[in-house]
């Protein structure tokens, strides 16, 4: 009798677990089927603030909430603000986009390396100073690019590293899964130390564990600004690194969502909001 009670309890707990995880998926997949038959252009209706009707086109935002993944370790694009919430240029931009689309924006702070694989299941879109690459394009779609950047090299102040050939055989600190990580792996004879946070890579550069750190331009300038006597940030152009485009990553094939986001970016650029955010967050930080 007692045994069967325990079994029943165990089974019911499993059932609760499954139901708890399964529910949101169901609601998400139901409207997805609608999109094929009824291709209501979400972008047109999105600009008037009616949250209930405006977003019927895309499965990702059918519930009026746009869940956005980011990695708040990337100043000035995203960082944890004084109130403990993710803040920065990307956060302000996606909130402005959400306002234009008439949806509520919910931010999820997670590891950068798991952002792309979380799109479509844990998050709807990702904005994290993410560079458009061919590898990523195979898995997700990108919005129009909203910012151009290049990888920078941070070296100790007394380092002699100055050109591409100086990078050969060095120990390179990077943040896991970033374009700096990919660049470093392609450098001949390099030992790549990957960290969850770019600032940890900079810390270990200061500790003498690595010879250089490869990270995007703006965070590099922020980090170099924190330790002006110990490190210098060098422009990646002198190492032959190419210019990269930041964009918002979103589920593959969701044209309605892509249109809605791209239109919102266009509107923000047209009405001057975008430039205001650049001035406030990016130029203000350098």
């Amino acid at each position, binding site marked *: 009798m007692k045994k069967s009670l325990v079994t029943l309890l165990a089974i019911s707990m499993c059932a609760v677990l499954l139901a708890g995880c399964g529910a949101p998926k169901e609601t998400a997949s139901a409207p997805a089927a609608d999109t094929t038959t009824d291709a209501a252009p979400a972008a047109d209706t999105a600009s008037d603030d009616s949250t209930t009707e405006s977003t019927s086109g895309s499965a990702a935002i059918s519930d009026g909430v746009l869940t956005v993944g980011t990695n708040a370790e990337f100043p000035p694009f995203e960082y944890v603000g004084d109130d403990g919430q993710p803040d920065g240029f990307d956060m302000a931009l996606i909130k402005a986009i959400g306002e234009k689309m008439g949806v509520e924006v919910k931010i999820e702070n997670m590891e950068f390396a798991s952002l792309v694989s979380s799109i479509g299941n844990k998050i709807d879109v990702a904005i994290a100073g993410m560079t458009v690459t061919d590898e990523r394009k195979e*898995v997700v779609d990108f919005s129009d690019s909203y910012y151009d950047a290049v990888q920078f090299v941070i070296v100790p102040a007394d380092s002699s590293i100055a050109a591409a050939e100086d990078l050969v055989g060095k120990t390179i600190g990077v943040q896991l*899964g970033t374009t700096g990580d990919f660049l470093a792996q392609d450098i001949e004879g390099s030992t790549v130390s990957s960290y969850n946070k770019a600032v*940890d890579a900079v810390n270990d550069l200061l*500790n003498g564990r690595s010879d250089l750190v490869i990270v995007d331009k703006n965070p590099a300038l922020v980090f170099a600004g924190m330790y002006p006597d110990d490190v210098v940030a060098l422009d990646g152009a002198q190492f032959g690194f190419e210019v990269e485009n930041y964009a918002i990553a979103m589920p593959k094939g969701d044209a309605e969502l892509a249109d809605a986001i791209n239109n919102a970016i266009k509107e923000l650029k047209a009405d001057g909001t975008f430039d205001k955010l650049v001035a406030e967050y990016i130029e203000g930080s350098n």
Partner: protein
Amino acid sequence: MQSWFIHVGEMFQRAFIKEDRWKLYLSGLGVTLKVAFFAAILGVILGTVAALMKLSVKKNGKPSVRSIIATIYIDIIRGTPSVVQLLIMWFIIMKNCRNGVLVAVLSFGINSGAYVAEIIRAGILAVDHGQTEAGRSLGLSQAQTMMYIVIPQAIKNVLPPIGNEFIVLLKETAIVGYVSLSDLTRVANQVSSRTYEAFMPLIGAAVIYFVIIKILSILLGRLERRLRKSDRR
């Protein structure tokens, strides 16, 4: 169904075969085993010393200075998460050490030592006090009694929980990715950060961990049986 198999095959291909990624897993496993092995040795040494220190008493029956030191060590280590200990070791105590494996071995060894100390202390206390009395009345010194009478019996007592501690230790090394060491878990993360698929690398890492630990527990079981051979005659 067939397309599902092809899909899984492609994922496998991307996660293990493409660009010789299986070599990454091997080197990651190497780091995991290296850290776990040396940390286990350090843990047993530290644990034995700490256990004996904690068991020592003054003539008047009050705890000795040695025993207080051992108690503080065990308290601090058991009272803080091993990730925090590892980060403190990496970024503060040994911040200029370039040998990452060494830092991890020290951190995990010191951590494991606290748990091993309690296991060994329990094993020693489980040996009947009559054994000590018999040894002492036969003219052996306190140290000799400990060495030749109590400890050999204690070893048999502690083997199952020590084996358990080794298994926990091996799995706990999965956190060294925090400090940029490329162990098995970190390698799986690195691969999934390239392929954007978490499934294969994580399942692969899980299978490898399981196999290693299965082998370890079979070996420990054999050793245990071996030591019990003389129990019932």
